[in-house]
């Protein structure tokens, strides 16, 4: 596949590349473009592609304390809540996922495969049907309308997959390394923290990023569990915002860009590890 210098080959390749790029990137691009247009431009005909007069109006409106949107939705609070929930649950998920991942990946014990399979399947249960019983459970624990409750819930949702990614990756690390360390008198715990885990960093980063994105964009459970304005997360704000300004896509686009930006930054820095870790999880063991 390499070094085919034939022009036809490269033309075809470029065309395919453009098709893929258009499909994947155009919707995002279009939303960002809309965020720089005025409401009047978006409502008028014919549709314009590039903003006629690029403006930051929609972004300013998000934070302007006199505008409708900022009074309804305090973005700084929403964003900091989402950060607290996403970061805390990510830490929990990586910590406990690593513990369990080590056990599943490197220790043989009765029922291991069955338990891991069961954990993976449990991810399917998180649909609309569980909204009501989950609310009842959180209420019983006195954790509804609390960020701590949401952190625990998201952690429970995220743990199975994180465990699986980490376990698959730990399985790849040669067992001899650990064995020789243990011969030298290191305990299980020591060999795990000093020998195995440093080698599994990409997998840990992958699990962390995966969970962070999931927690950052979760809407259904957050919307039913959280009540007070000071507890709401960014997706709740975004959904209210979309409902209020549904045909003003400049505002929707600006809000969406704002909400997606933190994740994009995370990805910019973690991308390389992310694919490597995923690969370890998904490639033959």
């Amino acid at each position: 596949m390499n070094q085919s210098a034939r022009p036809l080959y490269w033309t075809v390749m470029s065309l395919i590349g453009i098709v893929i790029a258009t499909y994947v990137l155009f919707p995002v691009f279009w939303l960002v473009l809309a965020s720089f247009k005025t409401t009047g431009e978006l409502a008028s005909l014919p549709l314009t592609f590039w903003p006629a007069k690029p403006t930051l109006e929609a972004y300013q409106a998000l934070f302007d304390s006199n505008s409708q949107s900022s009074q309804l939705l305090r973005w700084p609070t929403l964003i900091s809540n989402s950060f607290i929930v996403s970061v805390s649950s990510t830490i929990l998920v990586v910590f406990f996922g690593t513990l369990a991942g080590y056990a599943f990946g490197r220790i043989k014990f009765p029922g291991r495969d069955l338990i891991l399979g069961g954990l993976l399947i449990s991810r399917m249960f998180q649909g609309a049907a569980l909204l009501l019983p989950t609310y009842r459970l959180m209420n019983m624990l006195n954790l509804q309308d609390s960020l701590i409750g949401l952190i625990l819930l998201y952690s429970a949702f995220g743990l199975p997959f994180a465990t699986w990614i980490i376990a698959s990756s730990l399985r790849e690390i040669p067992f001899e390394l650990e064995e020789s360390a243990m011969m030298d008198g290191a305990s299980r715990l020591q060999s795990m923290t000093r020998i195995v885990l440093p080698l599994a960093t990409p997998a840990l980063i992958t699990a962390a990023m995966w969970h962070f994105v999931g927690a950052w964009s979760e809407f259904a459970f957050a919307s039913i569990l959280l009540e007070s304005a000071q507890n709401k997360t960014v997706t709740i704000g975004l959904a209210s915002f979309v409902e209020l300004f549904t045909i003003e896509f400049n505002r929707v686009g600006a809000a969406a860009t704002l909400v997606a930006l933190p994740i994009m930054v995370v990805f910019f820095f973690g991308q390389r590890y992310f694919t490597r870790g995923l690969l370890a999880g998904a490639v033959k063991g």
Partner: protein
Amino acid sequence: MQMKLNRRHFLAGSTALASLSLLPATGARAASGALSVWKFGGTPAEVEAWPAANARFLAANPGVNLDYSFFNGQIRRQKLLAAFQTNKLADVVIAFGQDIPEFAGFGMIQPLDALAGADKVAQWKERLVPEIMADGMYDGKLYGLPTYVDMASFIAINTDAMKEAGFDRPPQTWTELREYAKAMTKPDRPGIAFPATTAPVDINIFEGIAYANGGRIFDEETGKVTLNDPGCVDALQLYADLIADGSTPSGSAMTETNFRDTAQLFGQGRAAMWIGLSWLNTPWPVPEGMHWEGAPFPRPDKPTGTFPPVAAIMDGTAVLMVSARSKNPQAAIDYVDFWTQNEQLKVWGGNPEIARVPAGKAAWDEPKLAEVWPNWVKAYKAGTLFEGAQAMPRFIGVSAVESALGGAIQQVVLGQKSAQEALDAATSAAQTQIDLLRG
């Protein structure tokens, strides 16, 4: 300046009056303690006005610890249901008039008249338009206090296009409507559009037409779903006829276009008329130089339904209700009472971004309302605005029946079934659903 002074004077007067009347009735105890209030959805301006009013409430009731939450309108029912099941419902919830029978039937909310006492109710009656206040009644009791209503159904007409087609007044009958729509249709601009998605507003718009034709969707007396009553079938046939005349966008375009999008199409000059609720295009600016007016939806030439035809149907989407298990009913009723004050109800007195039919009598005197909706104010003053109007469908299981109706409308609009077939099937499906719910 003059205006501001007047208002302040009035406010001081009315609160003094309220506290006076409160003394003898309730044994001299002003409300205090924790009070939670949940509001769902609304237009941006209204959602913004609400917390501002809360601040006034707190100023007048310093002993109350108000916990106010605003929620996305789409999660209204699931949020209320979950909270009710776990005994966590807020003291005051602000929901739809159409919700009342279910909430009352499930024991979620309690009658306001018993809680407030005769004196307060008498004051409410003085301040509220009686026809709108009746929208909060169910089973002979006042369960909700509407702050405004929306009415169905109306048409918005591009008057330039109307004149161009040689007409000088809006259509008044179904036959005229079909003529107008056909005459106003151009190759790139349908004469009329109507929203037909699964959005509840789109279904309410159709119900307004069907009820005016003597149709109903449910008969409380017999417990039977009546979607296939001739009144509904012929109204749906009107939709089908307009499409068959070639006067509308394609059926599939209308099933993906909700009321807001349809309003936008009208504003862009991509439809010469559209069928909507009372606010039509008022909340959304139309381009300079475009002329339009709203009119009641044309009447059937001869109503064919088995029920009495109505002039319009109406419902409030910000109706105050008090939880049946409220721990602070005193503060809750004071909060409801606060919203019956003219100062608060003025929020709906003509702000085009809110564009509702106000419940407060005083709001009808606002000059802005006369400016935005001159015809309505005229009709209201003449006492004809609510003549023959009735509440939008409301009974236990209303969502299931409306959803079945929405499906049937879409089937007909898409040309999959005839109006009769679609509504027959919807009737039996909805009947099964409703029997299950009512046991």
